[in-house]
Structures are given as structure tokens and as C-alpha cells.
């Protein structure tokens, strides 16, 4: 994940990397706890994605701004304080917007603090790059995470309650698959998506571009 040229100009790749090549959920398998727990409906998935993206972007900006001031020895403690601040802010804002949403997301809002995607971005990207690049990269990763949550949330809501964002799709004759909105459903849908994504990547590898190969391997 380490960018070898920190002063490289911002390219489209800075942004799209977190969405496709380094998608936090489908490629790096990070942040599985909220991915499985709060994706029982499209609205919950979207709210969780936005909340995480907000924390990711804000903490990346602050970490990037302070990157020359933070001594190496206390960097992790500093990052955690910064991340926890923005999580607390999100927590209050969601309570102010909707109590129902707050109840639906439950403890998983507070648990964004320990979401390894955010600490990972702070440590491996924001602390080594200027704020403009860090914002773009954080936005890309946040979007990648949100898309992944929505992939799960929409499928689970459609099958588990026959609706999309609360709007009934299949009509009353549809018998919902209750298992899909229960925890096991999260594993089923995640497994299916991972299968699909691995298959797509394998097919692409038949004709790989040089850039892709590089991005795919040097992070492990």
C-alpha cells in the first residue's frame, strides 16, 4: 500500500484505488464487523458507509496536516484520539438527525473507532502524504467501503424483506427469506459477492496491465 513517490501528482488512480484494486471489503477483507452486522437494510448500509467515510476523510485530513508534528513514538495514540473525536461527532450528529437510525446502527457507530480501515489509511497513507492527496484517497476508500456495504445491504433487504430502501418491491405475495436479515444471511451474501469478485479478478488476470499487477501484489 506504500506509495513509493509521495510527491507524485494526484491522479485518478489515487481516487479509484480504494474502490476497485484495494477495495477495503472485497479485496482487503477489512472492517468485516460492520459489514456483516449493519447491512440488513439498504438504508442502514448507506448510513454506516457515509458515517465511516466522514470519519475517514476528517481523520485523514488532520493526520496529514499534523504529519510532521507527530513523533513516531506516539503516532498510534494520536491517531486513535483523532479518530475517536470524529466518531463521537458522528455519534451526536446521527442522534440529532434520526433516533431510529441511531437505534438501528446501535453500538456499531461507536465501533468505527476500531475500524481498521481508518487506522490503516491514517498509518499507511495520510501520515505520508499531503492533505489534498490524503482527502482524495480517503474519499475513494470511503466510497469503496460504502459501495461494498450497499452491495450486501441491498441484496439482503431485497431477499429478506422484499423491499429496497423500505419500498416494497415484490408485493404481498412474496414470502421474505427472514434468514437474509439475520446474521447468517450476512455471511451468505458476503461469500457470494467475494466469489463473484474473485472470479472477475481472475478473468482480468488473463490480460493484466502492468499497473494492476503491481498494485495487486506489493501490499501483502
Amino acid at each position, binding site marked *: 500500500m506504500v506509495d513509493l513517490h509521495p510527491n507524485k501528482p494526484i491522479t485518478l488512480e489515487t481516487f479509484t484505488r480504494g474502490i476497485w484494486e484495494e477495495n477495503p471489503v472485497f479485496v482487503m477483507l477489512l472492517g468485516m464487523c460492520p459489514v456483516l452486522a449493519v447491512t440488513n437494510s439498504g438504508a442502514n448500509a448507506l448510513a454506516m458507509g457515509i458515517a465511516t467515510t466522514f470519519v475517514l476523510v476528517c481523520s485523514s485530513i488532520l493526520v496529514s496536516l499534523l504529519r*510532521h508534528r507527530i*513523533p513516531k513514538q506516539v503516532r498510534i495514540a494520536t491517531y486513535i*484520539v*483523532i479518530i475517536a473525536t470524529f466518531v463521537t461527532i458522528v455519534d*451526536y450528529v446521527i442522534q440529532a438527525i434520526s433516533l431510529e437510525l441511531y437505534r438501528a446502527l446501535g453500538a456499531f457507530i461507536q465501533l468505527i473507532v476500531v475500524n481498521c480501515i481508518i487506522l490503516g489509511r491514517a498509518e499507511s497513507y495520510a501520515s505520508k502524504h499531503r492533505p489534498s492527496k490524503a482527502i482524495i484517497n480517503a474519499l475513494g476508500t470511503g466510497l469503496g467501503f460504502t459501495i461494498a456495504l450497499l452491495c450486501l445491504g441491498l441484496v439482503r433487504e431485497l431477499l429478506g424483506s422484499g423491499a429496497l430502501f423500505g419500498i416494497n418491491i415484490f408485493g404481498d405475495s412474496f414470502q421474505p427469506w*427472514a434468514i437474509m436479515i439475520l446474521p447468517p444471511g450476512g455471511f451468505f451474501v458476503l461469500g457470494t459477492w467475494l466469489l463473484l469478485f474473485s472470479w472477475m479478478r481472475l478473468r482480468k488476470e488473463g490480460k493484466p496491465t502492468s499497473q494492476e499487477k503491481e498494485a495487486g501484489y506489493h501490499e501483502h
Partner: protein
Amino acid sequence: MNSPSPHSTQPSALSLIATLGVVALISGVLVVLVYQLTLPAILENRRIALERAIFTVLPGARSRINFALTAEGLERIDDQQTDGPRVYAGYDLSGKLTGVALEASAQGYQDIIRILYGYSPKCSCITGITVLESKETPGLGDKIETDPEFLVNFEALDGRLNATGERLNNEIVTVKHGKKSNPWEIDAISGATVSSKAIGRMLNNSAQKTFPLIMQQLQKLTQEES
């Protein structure tokens, strides 16, 4: 990583403390600022949610007054006071008491279920329930919140007191689906017996304890109407 300290290998403890101090200060200021800005909206949301629940279980109610239920009787409190069990008295447009909303809870299938239910002293009956907190199984136990056939049980569930006024004349019980024959019985949801029974149990426990007290304090509740 770059460090401002002159000893580039080991920065002084003071600079470590200073860094953490500055970051903690920024953090504290941000959190307090957002807390102050969002507090009115959060309190307003809580009030709306509470009133929606109260007015659901007390048909006809348009305003409410909070009371704390203590051994000495009822004491008027405001929204901020949270100690002790609370009684919400609901009044209609003309200021007449329509009933009181009470909280009850019991162990369900997954976890504790908490409900708010309405009690009308006029008909000595329960007038409605709404679930405040439940983790019951989706598709089965969570029907206690939505199943219209089940909720009909609570439109006029008998809660009369016996001759001495110390206990319910008939215990509120949950019976098997389709076996309800008395006004104090609750018809269970088939496939969600444990959750249905939990509702019956919590209503009975709460009613046995509070209805006699409410009836003794009825004077006080109706006096507040003006």
C-alpha cells in the same frame, strides 16, 4: 517519520506529552462544540419519539404530564428527571384524563423486551401497547410489534381490580393462538409463543403492582387536567 525534536532518534518526553496534549485539546474543543450544537435537536428527537409512543397507547391523548411513581404516591417531574419508574398521564383536547402510559419489561426469546402500554382508569382496561426495545427474531418474534391480530388484544384488555382494590380481579395471561375466550386473555401469535407470553407476563406483573396505586392516586391525576 519527521520529528521536530533536535535529537532526531529519541524525542524528549516533553515533546511527546505536548503533542498528545495539543491533539487532545483540539479533540476536546471539537467534541464539546458539536455536543452543544446538536443537543437541542437530540432532546427534541427524544421528546417526539416519547410522545409518539405515549399517544399510540393512549388513543385520544393530545398532551401529557410526567409523574414519578414512588411509595408515597405520584410526584410531578419533568423530562430531564429519569430516576424511578415513570407514569405518563395523557389528556385529551378538553383537558380530560384519557389514561396513563406505563413501562413494562420482561425476558423475551432473545433479550429483554421493553414496552410502553396505556391504561385507562375509566374502563379499567389496557388501551394499547408499543414496543420500545426488542431484539426478537425477525419474521417470528418481532411480529409482537406489527401483527394486527395480536395488537387487537390490547385495544381493551381487561385490567379490573378485585373488591379490595389490591390486586387484579383476573390475572392477565397469554393463551394459545385461537383460544382467547375472556377479555383478560391475550391470544398468542402462532410461531411466536415465547415472545407473546413475555408480553402477557410483563403486563400482568406491572399491572398487579401499579394499577392499585394508580386507582388510589386517581384524584391527583385528574386534578392536573387544568
